[in-house]
């Protein structure tokens, strides 16, 4: 392939980081203030692109969790009794403040989590603001959300969120819970606590009463203590299917309401009558967006055999133009893997795939010397019985399988314990509708992928969890009959 007559070098258009003021250490956010953890313990959060430590963060112990739940419980009567119109206006403030401080949040999210600044700026932060804006408007309209049904809040909600979209997941959880009048104890992921802690600032600035939202940082034991706490009325969890099952067992028999948003192994199905160039873009977006750290990632490409070679060729050519590197560079497409642990997991699964007989393709990529990196990867010659066709890798790794007919595509797509999402690429509208009616997935994207909107319900079938976030359906998990 002829080289350009000059290197088409994109400027390292590095976003300045001085807009973020990091403290050396952070406490827990309980009862409207930052307090030291009674446990006395803490942990470091690092920048996965450089392995530099960013800040020390408190690790909440059982007593701290108890204090947080107590604060949420104490704040609940006044918060739930507040006229809905006032609650609505407070939440609108949160949305507007997130927009005011958008750049600060985007930079912080990229520093703490490793995702490209282009994504945190264009996707994570605007969507987080939009979720608060959308649900603010439901707070005083609940009479219309459930025909024939008067509702009231559940009480104290325990919300445990993952590291792949730290701020956005916080917004997905907090907005509907608060809009319906619940109070919250939120536990951010261990590797990405910082944007939630900055959000606490915004909530206080918006004049949310103390105790309405409490944030307990920590590791798995903090989350476990929180979901098991008897003072909690509702548990909402987004994370791995294995931990989801543990939580399901832990709350069994307690009467606590539960929603789970777990893993996935989505099929991205490309038919011969698709708009192929756009389908390739969609496949790329489906698995390499956010380094594939996406529960609904299109991690299995199911391509119709007649166009398999053409699509794979286009895919490989397209991979060569993906830029992996400094997440703060606006030209970067693929950022850092979130942690050493996740990197090891991805590596070992790809190795397993090769052992099973798949062929690996990775474009030549200069990876930075420090930090956690994995190049965009395609595994061809994958069969349904392979581990790489069944297990969630949660990294920038695409497994490619083929099919011959629509029915076969459906069967292969559904042949998984997961059921979160799926993609369908065809220009034939009736086939879009036929496929989507048969795919056992909570979200079907047709001729697009990884599109999210606060008005659009999201959630899984089968072992991808239950309950929906977004849309009017996203209110239901947070209310009961009045």
């Amino acid at each position: 392939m002829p080289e350009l007559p000059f290197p088409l070098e994109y400027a390292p258009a590095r976003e300045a980081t001085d807009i973020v003021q990091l403290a050396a250490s952070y406490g827990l956010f309980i009862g409207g203030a930052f307090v030291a953890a009674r446990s006395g313990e803490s942990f470091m959060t690092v920048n996965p692109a450089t392995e530099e430590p960013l800040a020390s963060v408190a690790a909440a112990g059982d007593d701290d969790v108890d204090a947080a739940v107590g604060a949420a419980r104490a704040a609940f009567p006044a918060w739930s009794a507040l006229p809905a119109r006032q609650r609505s206006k407070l939440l609108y403030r949160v949305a507007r403040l997130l927009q005011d401080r958008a750049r600060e949040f985007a930079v912080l999210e990229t520093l703490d989590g490793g995702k490209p600044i282009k994504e945190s700026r264009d996707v994570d932060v605007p969507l987080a603001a939009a979720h608060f804006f959308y649900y603010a408007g439901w707070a005083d309209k609940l009479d219309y959300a459930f025909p024939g049904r008067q509702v009231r809040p559940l009480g104290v909600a325990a919300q445990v969120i993952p590291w792949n979209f730290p701020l956005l997941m916080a917004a997905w959880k907090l907005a509907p819970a608060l809009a319906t009048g619940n109070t919250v104890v939120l536990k951010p992921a261990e590797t990405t606590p910082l944007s939630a802690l900055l959000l606490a600032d915004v909530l206080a600035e918006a004049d949310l009463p103390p105790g309405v939202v409490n944030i307990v940082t920590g590791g798995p034991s903090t989350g476990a203590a929180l979901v098991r706490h008897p003072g909690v009325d509702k548990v909402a969890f987004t994370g791995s299917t294995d931990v989801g099952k543990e939580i399901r067992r832990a709350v069994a028999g307690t009467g606590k309401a539960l929603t789970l948003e777990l893993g996935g192994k989505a099929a991205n199905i490309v038919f011969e009558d698709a708009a192929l160039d756009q389908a390739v873009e969609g496949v790329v977006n489906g698995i390499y967006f956010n380094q594939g750290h996406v529960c609904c990632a299109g991690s299995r490409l199911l391509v119709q055999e007649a166009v398999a070679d053409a699509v794979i060729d286009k895919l490989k050519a397209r991979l060569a133009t993906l830029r992996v590197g400094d997440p703060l560079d606006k030209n970067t497409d693929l950022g850092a893997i979130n942690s050493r642990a996740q990197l090891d997991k991805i590596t070992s699964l790809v190795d397993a795939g090769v052992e099973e007989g798949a062929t690996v393709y990775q474009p030549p990529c200069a990876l930075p010397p420090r930090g956690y990196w994995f190049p965009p990867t395609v595994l061809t010659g994958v069969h349904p019985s392979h581990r790489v066709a069944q297990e969630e890798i949660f990294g920038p790794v695409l497994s490619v399988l083929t099919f011959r007919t629509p029915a076969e595509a459906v069967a292969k797509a559904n042949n998984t314990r997961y059921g979160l999402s799926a993609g369908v690429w065809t220009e034939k509208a009736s086939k879009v509708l036929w496929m989507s009616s048969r795919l056992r997935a909570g979200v079907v994207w047709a001729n697009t992928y990884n599109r999210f909107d606060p008005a659009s319900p999201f959630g899984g079938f089968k072992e991808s969890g239950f309950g929906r976030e977004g849309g009017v359906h996203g209110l239901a998990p947070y209310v009961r009959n009045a």
Partner: protein
Amino acid sequence: MSPVPVLAGQPPVAAPQAAAGWVRAGPVDAVGLEARAAALASRSLKRATKVAVLELAVRCMDLTTLEGSDTPGKVAQLCAKAARPDASDPSVPPVAAVCVYPQLVPVAVAALAGTGVKVASVAGTFPAGLGPSAARVEEVRFAVEQGADEIDIVLDRSSFLSGRYARAFDAIAECKDAAGRAHLKVILETGELGSYDQVRRASALAMAAGADFIKTSTGKVTPAATLPVALCMAEAIREHHAATGRAVGLKVAGGVRTAKQAWQYLVVVAETLDGGWAAPALFRIGASSLLNDVLLQLRKERTGAYASPDDVADA
């Protein structure tokens, strides 16, 4: 040459991959295409690359004047600018070509002798392309005889949009014959085609009929060139190259006024095709006011200060 019904949206029939080529013209998803074009538009270029890209933009430019009021004096003035764009800076290269109406070709040929700048002529009853076949072909021959190196004709949209693809194909093929050694650009007039599917189909048809370049617009209709349209055409060129081995060029024309737009188009080409296309042999920008904006940007990169329009001569 056998007429080719271009099979839009169908998989390629096993067919002779010859010049008469049955070429797949698949459907295009507009939302996805526009999103990709927007992402490409947001790339930022390194400064050193910027200068190289600006100079490339100049070398790929077709300076154009297609007005009823064009006189020999006007054309000669444009040619002088084409050969030496910046009077105070001889390092700025000449443009690729000057594009004029057939009657003005001899003026341009004389003015550009020895400069290396090509003479392009519109022909084929530009811009509608609806004159009688004999007149279209004769105009092409005339322009070539007068000395034109390159011929720009239009796609017969009347035939194309009414589904008479064979007619549209033949109209191009006969002009290709008449053009002889001159290279042939086919203007799709994308602003009239109505959808990206049609742009894709028209691109495939024009290339199958022998176009050496496919071009977005006549400049007489808006919308003219846009990034998504250029991306769509680049994808069609890529497909054609993969199927036939023949490299067809891309020309964007109409509405390209700023240096920033010029390098956005170059990014689209560089990321969709390969380095071979970032050269005057396979990429052109048809423009008039763009040149001065590029020159001002070049000055800014060189001197560090923003320049004034008075610093460069009018074309």
